[in-house]
């Protein structure tokens, strides 16, 4: 049961990483900021600018 819970946690962690939600949490922690629509937009603009400067794989 504990193993199943660990796998579920891992999967959720992967989904959060792919969704940039973990990166946002790290961004808030690094800047000592609290979540707000403005903060999300600031994070998003920076994150997406870097992300889409690279080609996507074929």
């Amino acid at each position: 049961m504990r193993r199943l819970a660990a796998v579920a946690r891992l999967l959720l962690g992967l989904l959060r990483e792919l969704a940039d939600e973990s990166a946002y949490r790290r961004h808030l922690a690094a800047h000592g900021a609290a979540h707000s629509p403005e903060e999300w937009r600031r994070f998003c603009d920076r994150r997406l600018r870097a992300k889409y400067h690279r080609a996507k794989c074929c």
Partner: protein
Amino acid sequence: MWLVVASVCIYLTGFRFYAKFIAAKVMALDNTRATPAERLRDGHDFEPTNKWIVFGHHFAAIAGPGPLVGPTLAAQFGYLPGTLWIIIGAVIGGCVQDFVILFCSMRRDGKSLGQMAREEIGRVGGFTALLTVLLIMIILLAVVALVVVNALKGSPWGTFTIAATMPIAVLMGLYLRYWRPGKVLECSVLGFVLVVASIFGGQWVSQSPAWAPWFTLSGIALAWAVIVYGFFASALPVWLLLAPRDYLSTFVKLGVVLMLGVGILFVRPELKMPAYTQFVDGTGPIFAGKIFPFCFITIACGAISGFHSLISSGTTPKMIAREWHAWPVGYGSMALESFVAVMAMIAACVMQPGIYFAVNSPAGIVGAAPEQAVATITSWGYPVDVPAMTELARDVGEETLFNRTGGAPSLALGMAHIFASSGGGKAILGFWYHFAIMFEALFILTIIDAGTRVGRFMLQDLLGHLHKPLGRTGWLPGVIGASAAVVLAWGYFLVQGVRDPLGGINSLWPLFGIANQLLAAIALCVATTVLIKMHRARYMWITCIPLAWLVVVCYTAAIQKIFSGLPRVGFLAQAEQLRTALESGKIAAAQAAATRQQIFNNQLDAAVCAIFLILVTTILADSIRLWIGILSGNREGRVTESPFVLSQLRAEEL
């Protein structure tokens, strides 16, 4: 089933023994050495991350349409040659390339392939790598756009579903930006529900006499729609369209790959395609050329892909917490990608071969009339009849399935067959077929948006040297001009592919395969250079074997594509054949202009192929000169790794 078991056993053996040998003996991975993720930790790009999360992240980044479409096309040789190349190519070549480049980048603060080529080989190498990437992207965007166009041609159901993903993505963008900021997973679930609803909507549209004509488009109309879309998508803010659809496509992609794996294990489908067909002699209807080198060019991404080296030297090295994590992430992710290619091969081969060839063969080869097409295909020894094709088309909600070149429709048919056999049967075959088409088109359109945008940045970067404002990514005239230039470049090849009587795939897919594998050759040159500089010359065979193979395959294929005397293979021979026909008056006056255009297109394709060869020959010669210099002691081979720093990461931080 035996194919799945055999391939998994080979991947596991390669991972456990060969990759571990490379990790321990060749690269000497060291868990006490701090990775860039730890040393340069900034909470944004550099962040030590759980190895299985990095594994999933890396796999999601390298998995594209290539490993799905390539094997589907190569199934014309039978299931065995392609499958063997997918497995052996990945274990010895593709996985090694991804792993070694990831290691090189990780030891160099996450530097890109271009930066490493410049630093390790020299300025010429760096510039050549950048130029090659830009050119490959133009061909890549054209060929993937052609796959979408061919899949949606004359299909109101498919066209409506894909068109609906655009307002859905915009809605998701607004939802994330203004209504529920930060709730990406929640928003993606909503987007997925809407996309599935749009598949049902597409069925209704296709049956509506009023709406169906609006969404029944010709190849050229669809090509222009994709070109216009590409222009706007690359110029619009990323948060509005590109990013939300990218999130959605990533989750759908992972989900479908998992479903396909489970489906194959559950259904255990029987392969109807023979182990090999008579088309190994080069007379195949889908693309011309003998099994060597064209099987190895057609299946690029499932076995070895140069594009992966861009990902391995992109985000991933900045997330690796411990050096040994590069082992499952670099080697393991590519092994999984290769397994996806095996599953695509299975999906393509579960169909009756007659149906497979009827769907994938262009009208220029088998004839435009259904009766003519089935007669030709049956004469090859693969029986198929018009009523069976009509019934299948009706089951999946299409007008016709003849001449649906590009690989996507036949892959969707195979996937739909596997999914429907798991439950639901024929009644839901149409839903699964369009679900598979939506899944393929969704991430292809994301590649088009992102690729056009990256191409625009590269072009602006280059133009900025001529006129400063052109280099500013926020200057509107520069943005519009560069976007238009990139879109027109790939759009030209796309329209050329749509108009090609041989289906377009015959000329564009090999060009893409050659380009992609030549990029892999560049990556392997960089990897070999690093190994020599690390005093690991006795192990340089691990990168030199795949490099030598790629050089032989790509050069043979490129030379045949340019100079072969067979018009279906050689670009110049085809141009010559058309010129002779034009001059001898065999072509009607109304077709003269189109034929002249075709002659020019063939010459252009030959020139592009030659440019690829020149670029890679340049970097290869530069690398060999450097290797000889270092090995003979005439040149200094200094390692440019970041200095050793002891890792302070605690286990609980992982």
